[in-house]
């Protein structure tokens, strides 16, 4: 039960968020949008899929975030021979006080921040082991369910150009990611700054500026931000416009999309828009908040048609046209 006023909590939200961003920014150069969006997802309790070519600092970002948050961190390097039990844990034979029995040995998912590095390199079976964990935040092994402590979020990375020996994530799993963020190549100045910061003997020191309770509190605060029905209608229109069956969907969507975004995408967009409103110091969600989070929240949820795949259509482009036609 919170006794603090919403005004105070909103202020605290912005301060905490800024502290974490600044702390991460000590090590990560540039990539402000990525950092902000990762933190938005963290605040909302969502998982993030980071996509980018190797060497752009995806793993470094997650490592730094884990350091900035006083949370239990695990990393799994996904490889083709990784087994589900290597992820969620397994039962091992143990002797205790003269008795031998099977005891559950928790896997690396039992943490607060899980870095699933190169998630698309593991077999679908292993990827599927994460499904229950990501959605229900629990693990079931040998008919025994083991809850995972909150907060819990998966930060997965994947490489979009290396396709040999990879297994694309199934749609069901993709839909469980709150955001899919594309990490771009840094610009000239950022490049130079990366070299400056990492080229010496010492690395920037990252300290924990928030803990699990802070993160949970942030999540509770953001859910109190109201949204006007007119704005919510706009959000629904944007999501529905990604469906080719919708009459008002733009022609591009009708041509290149097979399946549009799910209601889970709308939920993610609403939560993320609330965070943006709070960060902007507002007590209401604006259409620009909705529009800003639409691309990362839906780009991995659109399933392109054969024509879309063949033409190499970017989902980002389709989402932008869906936003435009929602006005």
């Amino acid at each position, binding site marked *: 039960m919170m006794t603090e*006023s*919403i*005004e105070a909590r909103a202020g605290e939200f912005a301060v905490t968020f800024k502290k974490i961003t600044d702390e991460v920014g000590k090590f990560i150069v540039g990539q402000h949008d990525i950092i902000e969006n990762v933190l938005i997802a963290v605040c909302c309790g969502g998982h993030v899929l980071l996509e980018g070519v190797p060497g752009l600092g995806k793993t470094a970002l997650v490592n730094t975030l884990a350091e900035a948050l006083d949370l239990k961190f695990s990393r799994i390097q996904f490889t083709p021979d990784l087994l589900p039990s290597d992820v969620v844990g397994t039962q091992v034979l143990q002797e205790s006080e003269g008795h031998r029995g099977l005891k559950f040995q928790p896997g690396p998912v039992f943490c607060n921040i899980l870095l699933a590095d190169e998630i698309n390199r593991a077999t679908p079976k292993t990827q599927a082991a994460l499904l229950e964990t990501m959605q229900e935040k629990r693990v079931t092994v040998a008919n025994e369910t083991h809850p995972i402590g909150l907060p819990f979020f998966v930060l997965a990375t994947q490489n979009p150009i290396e396709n040999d020996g990879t297994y694309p994530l199934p749609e069901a799993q993709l839909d469980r990611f709150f955001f899919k963020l594309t990490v771009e190549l840094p610009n000239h100045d950022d490049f130079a700054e990366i070299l400056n910061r990492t080229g010496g003997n010492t690395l920037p020191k990252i300290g924990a500026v928030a803990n699990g309770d802070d993160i949970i509190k942030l999540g509770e605060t953001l859910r*109190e*931000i*109201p*949204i*006007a*029905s*007119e*704005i919510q209608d706009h959000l629904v229109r944007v999501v529905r416009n990604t469906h080719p069956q919708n009459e008002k969907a733009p022609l591009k969507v009708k041509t290149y999309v097979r399946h549009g975004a799910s209601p889970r995408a709308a939920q993610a967009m609403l939560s993320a828009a609330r965070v943006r409103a709070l960060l*902007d110091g*507002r*007590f*209401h*969600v*604006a*259409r*620009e908040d909705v529009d800003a989070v639409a691309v990362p929240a839906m780009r991995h949820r659109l399933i392109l048609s054969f024509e879309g795949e063949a033409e190499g259509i970017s989902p980002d482009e389709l989402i932008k046209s869906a936003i435009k036609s929602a006005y």
Partner: protein
Amino acid sequence: MKNEGIQKFLNEVTRRLNRGLAWRVAGWAVLITGIVLLAHAIIYRLYGMEVPWGGALVISFYALAIGAGVWLIRLRNSNECALVADKELDLKDSLTSAMEFEEKNSEVYKLQLKQTENLLSGKKAGDLKVELPTWSLVSGGVLAAAAIGLGFLPNSEAVQQRLDQEALTESRSEEIKTELEKYVEEFIKEMSADEKEVLSPEELKKWVKDLKRTKDQKEAMRQLARFEQKVTEAMSNMEARKDEEAMKAAAAELAKSDQAAARQLGKKLELKEFKAAEEDLKKLAEAAELKDPGKMDPKELEKKLEELKKLREATKRMANAARKRGAGQKKKLGNANGQMAPGNGKDMGQLMDAMDADAKGLQGEIAKGNWKKGDWEKGMKFEKNFNKNLKQFNKNLRRMNGRNLAKRRLADLRAGLNKAQRFANGQAQALGLAQGKRAGQGGLKPGVGNDRSKRKERDESPEVGNVASLEGQKGVGPSITAVEEADSGTGISGRSGETKAREFRRQMESFVRRDDVPEDVKMGVKKYFERVHEVSEEK
């Protein structure tokens, strides 16, 4: 609880945006009106016509009404205005959210309202851009001015001439109708009972009523031609040529008689004085009526028998004439061509025959002398039959008389229609139907007249007096005088007399319906064909 500051701001925004919308709609309305007015003016000018201001007023009114309608339909409500203000004034949907949150009491809503109020304190509704649609207003104005300029140009000479002609035709068609109505009223008043029996006054009135006021000269002529056709048809229906021929033959036969009464009767029949002939015949029959000779005074009887002889002489002559017309022709006699349709199914020839047979029978009965024994039954029967046939014969004579009179009147009416046609197509300057009807009454009263003979600057009708246009070009057009080879065709005629008559009638009608032939020529042609028709029938 509504926030006054926000509500006030929103009201100002709504007013401003709707004012802006009104300007935009007005701009479009003016532009479209200008385009339509100019197009309207150009179309009229291309036809050489003066631009009707009424049309321009209607277009302007509609543009205004449609513009107002569009404005009312597109009038923005406060929610829409809030969305626009949020976008234009960079309020990040504060106003839209505030409008919804106004009624809610939770802390976060109050904070939002406060935040919005603070945000709006630095904004003014006047910051919203409302642009005057200068381009469309100026363009619309220029186009409308150009249309007005074109509106001042007068009709071209040809158009003016046409309009004058139309006005003249319209007034003349109206005048013709009025005059014909009066004419027909007088016509009906003068009709006798016999005429009314064969020619319905209501039908006559309906024919006049069918004439409509028109601007189109050709239509006026067509209406008159249709009227004339009805008159001609009515006249044709009154034809009782075969009965008249029977009467003529009877007259010729009666003329040979040595009886003065019979010759007198024949004379009247020859002159087609059927009513007088009927009277004569009636007198003869009354004089010869025996009723019961047994009860009569011998002297009176002798006188009656003498009268019966005269009557018999007349009926005999008439019956002879009927018989001479031939037994073959009897078959043809009937109801065709509007012939008499006697109640007992006999035509005039048969009636004459029957009357003579009865008269002969009566004479025979007298000669037998049975009446002296008190047996007059057969004689009475002959007398009764004779009277019955005489009654029918006289009735037919009255009808023939009525038809003749009606035909004469219809002929007058047709002549009047010819005058009307000449008047309608500008060949005559005055109609003068009433004058014609009142012939011999001294024309119009002193000081009452018309000035239609006054010549204006230009001819009212381009066709008046323009003989060339009526004649056409010589040598052009189908020839009706082509000479066929003598040995062409089969040499066998398949046409009956009736077919020929129909063909003549068709030719005449098609000719009289033509608009480009002078009425005098038409009249001549009509008479010619009628004569041809008569001759063919007589043969």
